[in-house]
């Protein structure tokens, strides 16, 4: 089906496919305008722009705030790599490896971060443990002398980031644990090995490459952390990303912001290169011809079994508590919220009525729905064009498209935002001499750009899983290019396309990291509003508002997750296609870490 790569045959096939030429030209413009130019421009600015100066590195070294931010980011990244591995491995052991009572319930609890991530998750924990949070108030009732700002600084940031990112860790590792051949475990048992010896000598070495790879991803997550240090870091624990936001708005400090972002970007590129190498070369596949289905292992030692159960349920409580509190308090009146009191008589729908009947309060919600819907539609259209072209033509141009679509994966959202800001703050020919700053378009385009790598990776996997004989059969029956796409290819990938649009929509709904740089001043999206309300000293009413927003977002995310994993991807699998690329789905989640 694929054309050969000689220039003559490329030209011949282009003549036969005018629609492909049109799509190709559009992609050239899109890639140049949104994936290449802003980032190249940003790098040039970093070194030669007005804000750059010869002494920039000296200025960076001399700035205690910037150096502390850099150090904090790396400290957080290292600490997060350790904590998520400890918690993540424990979670996978209790939910997948060991025979634990109620493992399914535990797993649902551990996966709650799937339905609430990013700034919602941070504000959720803030509502629980923050200065005016439920737990803090309960504690101050018991210990009036205690510091009400105890949930601030490095440890709370690390705690929230660990909870938020372990779900992704769990997704990677669960796959690896499930791929273990049960015969290898039975063989070890047969030779007298004890359960924890088997974990250490048989299980962990098999999943170790996955652990290395996930560790790098967690390190990157820690390095680029934004909303968690912003909301919980306090004065003493600011990391690169929030610092860039702060410096970017101070005249004279923009150069420092740019150089900090550049360091972040550079570290990301280097680490992702290592990640790609680990992912390529390090996976152990079962070499047995008759692999046995994995069977859960019993912990024979009763004391140890009880201890593992207690720890598993304790962790479950940590994960589930914010969700329960958010949902319950969203139905509780403001006074009861403020006094941290809960009784049936306090239950009310008034908070929802207040939100949905007040134009000012509901507008950010509709703004976010509007922007996210446009972006999720835009991203699947652009990626569908690119991936379909790659599928039909194997030539240098489609290779460039393929690799260009991965550019945003290597660039922190912070740099995507700053790149677009610096590229389109003046009229540019490539944009028809329009200035994008101050328009809604720049935010929607940034959303699209940020979702391109994940969408293209998954869509490509979906295309690759199509049996090539379908298209050959259609050709043999007389069908041609667009007819084959419309009748055969598109129906086959359609569930994945919809799933990807829904996933993007869900993850963009409460986005903060891009929004904070690029949003239109008069059309505030939800992420900014939640941040604004979380920022101020929250009274019962404000808290109720955040609880309502969070609950509605969790409901939307819950429906989304059900639609994507429970319906759409099952439809696709039912059509005899390969299972989804889980790591790419995890990538979708990683884009929502705080």
């Amino acid at each position: 089906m694929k054309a050969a790569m000689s220039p003559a045959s490329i030209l011949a096939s282009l003549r036969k496919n005018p629609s492909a030429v049109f799509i190709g030209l559009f992609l050239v413009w899109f890639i140049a305008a949104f994936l290449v130019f802003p980032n190249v421009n940003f790098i040039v600015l970093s070194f030669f722009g007005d804000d750059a100066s010869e002494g920039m590195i000296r200025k960076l070294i001399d700035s205690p705030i910037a150096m502390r931010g850099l150090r904090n980011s790396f400290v957080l990244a290292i600490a997060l790599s350790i904590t998520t591995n400890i918690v993540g491995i424990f979670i996978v052991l209790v939910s997948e490896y060991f025979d634990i009572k109620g493992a399914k319930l535990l797993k649902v609890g551990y996966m709650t971060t799937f339905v609430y991530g990013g700034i919602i998750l941070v504000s959720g924990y803030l509502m629980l443990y923050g200065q005016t949070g439920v737990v803090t108030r309960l504690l101050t009732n018991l210990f009036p002398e205690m510091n009400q700002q105890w949930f601030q600084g490095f440890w709370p940031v690390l705690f929230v980031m660990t909870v938020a990112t372990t779900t992704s860790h769990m997704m990677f590792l669960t796959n690896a644990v499930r791929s273990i051949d049960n015969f290898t475990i039975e063989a070890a048992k047969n030779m007298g090995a004890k359960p924890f010896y088997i974990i250490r000598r048989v299980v962990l070495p098999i999943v170790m490459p996955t652990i290395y790879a996930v560790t790098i991803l967690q390190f990157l997550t820690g390095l680029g952390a934004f909303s968690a240090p912003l909301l919980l870091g306090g004065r003493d624990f600011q990391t690169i990303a929030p610092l860039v936001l702060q410096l970017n708005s101070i005249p004279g400090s923009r150069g420092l912001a740019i150089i900090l972002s550049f360091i972040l970007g550079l570290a990301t590129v280097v680490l992702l290169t290592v990640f790609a190498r680990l992912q390529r070369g390090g996976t152990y596949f079962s070499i047995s011809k008759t692999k046995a289905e994995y069977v859960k292992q019993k912990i024979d030692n009763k004391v140890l079994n009880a201890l593992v159960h207690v720890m598993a349920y304790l962790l479950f409580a940590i994960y589930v508590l914010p969700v329960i509190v958010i949902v319950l308090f969203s139905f509780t009146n403001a006074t009861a919220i403020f006094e941290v009191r809960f009784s049936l008589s306090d239950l009310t729908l008034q908070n929802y009525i207040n939100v949905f009947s007040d134009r000012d309060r509901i507008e950010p919600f509709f703004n976010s729905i509007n922007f996210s819907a446009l972006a999720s539609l835009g991203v699947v259209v652009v990626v569908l064009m690119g991936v379909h072209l790659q599928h039909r033509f194997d030539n240098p141009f489609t290779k460039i498209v393929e690799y260009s679509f991965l550019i945003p994966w290597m660039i922190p959202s912070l740099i995507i935002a700053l790149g677009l800001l610096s590229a389109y703050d003046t009229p540019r020919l490539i944009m028809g001499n329009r200035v994008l700053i101050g328009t809604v378009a720049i935010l929607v385009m940034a959303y699209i750009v940020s979702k391109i790598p994940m969408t293209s990776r998954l869509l490509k996997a979906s295309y690759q899983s199509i049996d090539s004989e379908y298209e050959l059969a259609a050709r043999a029956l007389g069908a041609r290019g667009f007819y084959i796409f419309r009748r055969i290819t598109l129906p086959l990938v359609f569930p994945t396309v919809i799933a990807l649009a829904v996933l993007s929509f869900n993850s963009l709904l409460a986005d903060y990291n891009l929004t904070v740089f690029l949003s239109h001043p008069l059309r505030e999206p939800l992420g900014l509003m939640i941040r604004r309300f979380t920022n101020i000293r929250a009274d019962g009413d404000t808290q109720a508002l955040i609880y309502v927003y969070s609950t509605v977002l969790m409901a939307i995310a819950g429906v989304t997750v059900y639609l994507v994993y429970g319906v759409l991807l099952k439809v696709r699998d039912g059509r005899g296609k390969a299972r989804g690329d889980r790591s790419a789905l995890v990538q979708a989640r990683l884009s929502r870490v705080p």
Partner: protein
Amino acid sequence: MIDLKGTEIKYGDFVAMHELDLHIREGEFFTLLGPSGCGKTSLLRMITGFIEPSQGQIYIKERDVTDVSVEKRGVGIVFQSYAIFPTMNVFENIAFGLRVQRLSPNEIEEMVLEMAKMVDLSREQLYRKASELSGGQQQRVAIARALILKPDILCLDEPLSNLDAKLRGQLRLELKKLQKRFGITTIYVTHDQEEALTLSDRIAVFDHGVLEQVGSPEEIFRRPATPFVANFIGDINQYATESLHDVFGIEAASGELGVSFIRLNNVKTEERSGMIKVPVTVVDIDFHGFFVKYTFVTGGGHEIRSATLHESEMHAVNDRLDIFVNEKDFFHL
């Protein structure tokens, strides 16, 4: 019907099929047989039009179709996976080619119903989803879809290779029945010798992109043209011709260079007139149900294998007995 004249298939520098001349007769069931990687699927794809020959011409009904696109060659194809479109029901699958030709809905319905009847698909089955079809039904849908455009040739690319042994046997019978019913020239690709022998009117055997032999199943089995064909088709005893005197005491061929073969079924354990007797010891027994394969060694340490119907009591390992061969059953290459 189909003539390949000096055709060659190349992938870069790799020659998948060396210069080939081949004639396929109208209405015959012609099989391209060979091990994986021998070039048989590439050859089929070249005939159907999915790949172009690097040299040579392809004629179908004396028309040069070398540069004619796949849909204009009058070739129907059944793929290894059957490639039943999973997003369409059976009716839509069969009607696909007709819709591409923009026939009227009435014509389409009429033709699909007629074709369904010919391949034994019920009206109710026509509206089933592809995922609800059994292996046999999928095969019939794939054949119906390929034949509804009334092609001159039907090409089948290993359509039974992914199925279990029992289903493969059933579908083989069904396939033969359908081919006889339609009387269409059929080119069949397989690596399975048994499949080729039972289905085909003629077989072309390939190895490493080279045509080794073309002939009827019986010719291929009884008179293989090359050592490769002799070994590839059925089980066989192989000896250096010069050693035949030592093993069997055959004088006629002794001293000649080359390779000599005798099929396992021609090594008998019961004496018949005019046969050469060889005293042997049983060293191994393979029980296959209807028949038994024995491995013997002669006094000189040469190995001889036989396959006999399991009718009488079996011999045991270390039994000493006489086996019998007929000199005319040997062939020398």
